[in-house]
């Protein structure tokens, strides 16, 4: 059972929902695991204070070229646009098929020599397959680490990307794999609507969409709803910092026929508790009722 906690806009309360939900579920069920998939800015560990007992670096494959073996096979008949035409028939252009097939410009020929730009590589392996002289092998580029351990009485996994690393999906995938054997998996997702979110929510059974009743919250919620619909995932809305402007979200949810699962009130005490890195349900147990409807959804899916 995999439940994702997502939102289009950042800072709407995803981590608050996922940490407290996992905490509450762990009181009723065995083998609950929280997986923090926001690998660029993971925060759940701040609230769980886990003892990490495992830390594994994650690598993506990048090409390594043996210049002795490289025959500068360029002037190829495979131009990048895929249309068949003969190019380079007059210029003695030294190049290679590897650079021609790479869609990410991660390989280039300069003065007849191939240069690899590992940070641009997506690890697809196309260059190695096309190389006619077996000059390309693979090495790894570290994209970050996956750490796991126990916090607040349940299992916890997170990915943490390396500073300067642009690509997060491979690390998100690795974090999800590290937690995949647990009975109930709660996935705290990154904000946004592009590849990192898609990787995080792929294959989940249900998505809790956390939003706030502001125009930015509503606009980004609409984008995130479009994503979930395109992926065909079932979802419902959680209104965080609920208060006088809730109708912004309620009107939209009604028109779109989306269920509002629960509301977490806008309260300075909750914000302060968050600021200190405390679980709301431990510091302010009176808010348990706000999280109960989410536990019931999980129960219904089990």
């Amino acid at each position, binding site marked *: 059972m995999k439940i994702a906690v997502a939102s*289009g806009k950042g800072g709407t309360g995803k981590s608050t929902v996922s940490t407290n939900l996992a905490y509450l579920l762990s009181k009723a069920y065995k083998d609950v695991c929280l997986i923090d998939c926001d690998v660029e800015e993971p925060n759940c560990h701040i609230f769980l204070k886990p003892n990490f007992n495992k830390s594994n670096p994650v690598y993506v494959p990048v090409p390594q070229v043996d210049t002795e073996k490289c025959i500068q096979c360029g002037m190829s008949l495979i131009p990048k646009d895929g249309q068949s035409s003969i190019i380079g028939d007059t210029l003695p252009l030294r190049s290679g098929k590897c650079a021609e097939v790479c*869609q990410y410009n991660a390989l280039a020929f300069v003065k007849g020599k191939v240069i690899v730009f590992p940070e641009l590589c997506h690890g697809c392996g*196309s260059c190695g397959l096309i190389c006619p002289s077996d000059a390309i092998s693979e090495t790894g580029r570290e994209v970050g680490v996956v750490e796991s351990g126990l916090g607040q009485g349940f299992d916890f996994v997170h990915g943490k990307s390396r500073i300067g690393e642009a690509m997060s999906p491979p690390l998100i995938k690795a974090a999800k794999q590290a937690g995949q054997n647990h009975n109930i998996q709660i996935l705290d997702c990154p904000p*946004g609507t592009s590849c*990192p979110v898609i990787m995080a929510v792929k294959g989940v059974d249900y998505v809790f969409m956390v939003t706030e009743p502001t125009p930015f919250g509503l*606009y980004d919620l609409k984008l995130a709803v479009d994503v979930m619909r395109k992926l065909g995932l079932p979802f419902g809305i959680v209104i965080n910092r609920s208060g006088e*402007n809730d109708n912004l979200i309620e009107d939209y949810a009604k028109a779109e026929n989306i269920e509002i699962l629960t509301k977490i009130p806008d309260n300075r005490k909750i914000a302060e508790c968050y600021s200190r*890195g405390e679980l709301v349900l431990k510091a302010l147990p009176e808010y348990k009722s706000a999280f109960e409807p989410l536990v019931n959804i999980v129960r219904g899916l089990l």
Partner: protein
Amino acid sequence: MKELVIISGKGGTGKTSITAAMANLAKNKVMVDCDVDAADLHLILNPQIQKTTDFYAGKSAQINPEICVKCGRCVEVCRFGAISKDFAVDEISCEGCGTCFYQCPSNAIKFEQVKSGEWFESDTRFGKLIHARLGIAEENSGKLVSEIKNYARLVAKQNNNDLIIVDGSPGIGCPVIASISGAHLVVIVTEPTLSGLHDALRVLKLTQHFKIPASICINKYDLNLELTKKMEDFCMDKGIEIVGKIPYDKIFTQAMIKEQTIIEYEPDSEVSARIKEMWNIISFNRK
């Protein structure tokens, strides 16, 4: 011409509201919304679109079942699990690497450019805004960010603007790296929460990694005075300037609902005064 980029690491710290307020105060500038995943700046600036340009992130593979001989080579070479057993490409998983296209022995695969978003040049009451909309579940937001930033530079040059103000995205990954590349100054908007500080430190390391000068704005500073003090001590110690301290205030949401900047909504409020003060410091640093 200088580039000022506003980022936050963590989302929801007030980055866009503060960017809009600074755009209100700045003169002779171009604005860019580089949070292409979840762009919000237009909700305040009410842009009148003058020009729309299609964005092509890359190519996508498509298998022609009439030519396909079902040899399975494409499934074997695809590292993204994007080709199903019955030889259909899942466009969401497809990374557009073209490995299947180049390896297919029967030329059954088409590999063509796909439109994955669009970007706009718009007029607003504060000047030109360059903004974008990435298609649903599309990738390569970093490339789109680079494209609109390059265009903004062109516009700024043509109009003799001396400043580009960029609203960045949360995180420290591909769109953020693209947003800060070439920046003269980065302002990190943070909040005194353990998460906010944790994320600000990571994004600060990112700016250091790329050797871009960064300063800090602490929003909602009175939410946790102890953590604010900790952040100030840290910045003092590391020689990082704190350019602004803004109190926790509902005015952020109220102004947003009215589709106004905070400066327009309540010019005499404390928040407006603090933002003006911050803007003076930044303008001074810019020179």
